């Protein structure tokens, strides 16, 4: 069943066109990785789906319903949650407050307790200000904060950025647990190996366009790499 559909989406920053006519669908329970070089439009695409960026053209559909004119906070109650690039925690709020402020009325498995269970490293830091956490802890709070709304669609933007490899491993271990429970996830990841590992399907963007799409298992690495860098540009 299709949960999210993106149709001919165009996103612009003034004259700069960041996303050009992108269309794809994400089914219930799928994990899709968006890959591509810096500036390919991945972050903009996620922000447009979450409602933080108003697209110039095209549509975003959730359960077949057009949500283009819906502000970001209402999309959260529809079940879309974005872990933004750079984490964007509320630094002056404690870990607990960061989580509790994001709690929604949507019923589901996630609460402060269950988030702390999945990210045990946060347990002793509950009363610490988010600004005083380490990078890994901050990323855990950012993911936990998104989970607090019990999303049906989780959007993850570069969760490994700026983290030590060991910490990235820990974050991804927790994530694969969440994905294993049947969550629908769209993630942006710079690390190709990791993206292919976690995702069932891969969409590669180049200069705002989809240049390659396929099952992660069926794609060979060379094809992905050349699409990623635009070595063999489709005519």
């Amino acid at each position: 069943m299709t949960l999210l559909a993106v149709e001919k989406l165009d996103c612009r920053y003034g004259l700069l066109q960041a996303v050009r006519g992108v269309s794809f669908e994400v089914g219930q329970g799928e994990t899709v990785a968006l890959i591509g070089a810096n500036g390919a439009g991945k972050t903009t695409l996620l922000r447009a789906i979450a409602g933080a960026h108003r697209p110039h053209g095209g549509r975003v559909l959730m359960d077949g319903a057009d949500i283009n004119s819906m502000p970001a906070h209402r999309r959260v109650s529809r079940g879309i949650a974005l872990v933004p690039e750079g984490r964007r925690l509320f630094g002056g709020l404690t870990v607990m407050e960061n989580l509790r402020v994001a709690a929604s009325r949507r019923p589901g498995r996630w609460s402060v307790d269950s988030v702390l269970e999945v990210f045990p490293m946060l347990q002793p830091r509950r009363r610490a200000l988010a600004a005083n956490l380490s990078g890994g802890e901050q990323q855990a709070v950012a993911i936990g904060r998104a989970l607090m709304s019990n999303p049906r669609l989780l959007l993850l933007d570069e969760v490994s950025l700026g983290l030590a490899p060991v910490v990235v491993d820990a974050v991804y271990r927790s994530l694969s647990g969440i994905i294993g429970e049947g969550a629908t996830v769209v993630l942006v990841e710079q690390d190709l190996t990791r993206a292919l590992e976690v995702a069932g399907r891969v969409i590669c963007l180049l200069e705002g366009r989809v240049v390659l799409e396929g099952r992660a298992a069926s794609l060979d690495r060379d094809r992905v790499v050349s699409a990623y860098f635009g070595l063999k540009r489709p005519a």
Partner: protein
Amino acid sequence: MTILNAILQGIFLGAFYAVLACGLSIMFGVMRIINLAHGDVAVLGAYIVLVIVDRTGVSAFVAFLIALPVMVVLGYALHFSVLERSLRAGILTPLLATFGLSIVIQNLLQLAFSPDVHSLGGSAGAVTTSSWQVTGGLSVSALGVLVLVTAVVVFGALQLLLSNTRLGWMMRATAEDADAAELVGINSRAVYASATALAVVIAALGGLFLGIRSVFDPVSGPTQLIFAFEAVVIGGMGSLWGTLLGGIALGIAQTLGAQIHPQFAVLAGHLLFLAVLVARFGGARVVLRTAR
């Protein structure tokens, strides 16, 4: 003993300034708006209380309770009609818009109530005149104590709101990063509007105290704004308890200044304000650079 008395009276006066400054501090803290019409909103609150007192004959305090819902509605109206639109246009526009609003409120009040001076002192009961003589040179007025206690209660309640309630967390989250707040499901428009409503209600409380302590007319607002603004800056912009302490510091400076010469009172407050400005921000040069 006169110095001690001056400091005590300064604390009472400062508590009044702190109540006036509280709403200004909330709006600056949450929305980064400096509401230049804040003093006029306080005076408008005083006039609304005056109208209720005149029509019904109740005491000023009861009239204030009746006026509360009116002020809440006014707060939301102010936000959605003026502040929200001007916020979208950058940081300078709210300053200009509220400056214009200040003039509009003053002139509407002139039209409706004439430039005559009014007071709520007569309708506030015994609290305006009672006092306790502690020792020979030290007297504590009931009104001073009432204002101080109210100020502490207001700031304490705000502290509880901000640290223990969901609305408080939403306000702090939106103040830090409105974009990220939207992404976790917070309706930032609604949060901003409730912050404005809260600020307007507390401004009206300041207006009530202004009317009981002394007199007001349609153009009393800007003077109140200056004292409130100074209290906010002395206390560290947007910090809650800092605003209370800033107000009290301003009050003490004024009453101590009055000990030297009655005309020196307001000037002493301004000098403290300038001294804090220079000390905190490293002189006028830095202030000018950051303002640009």
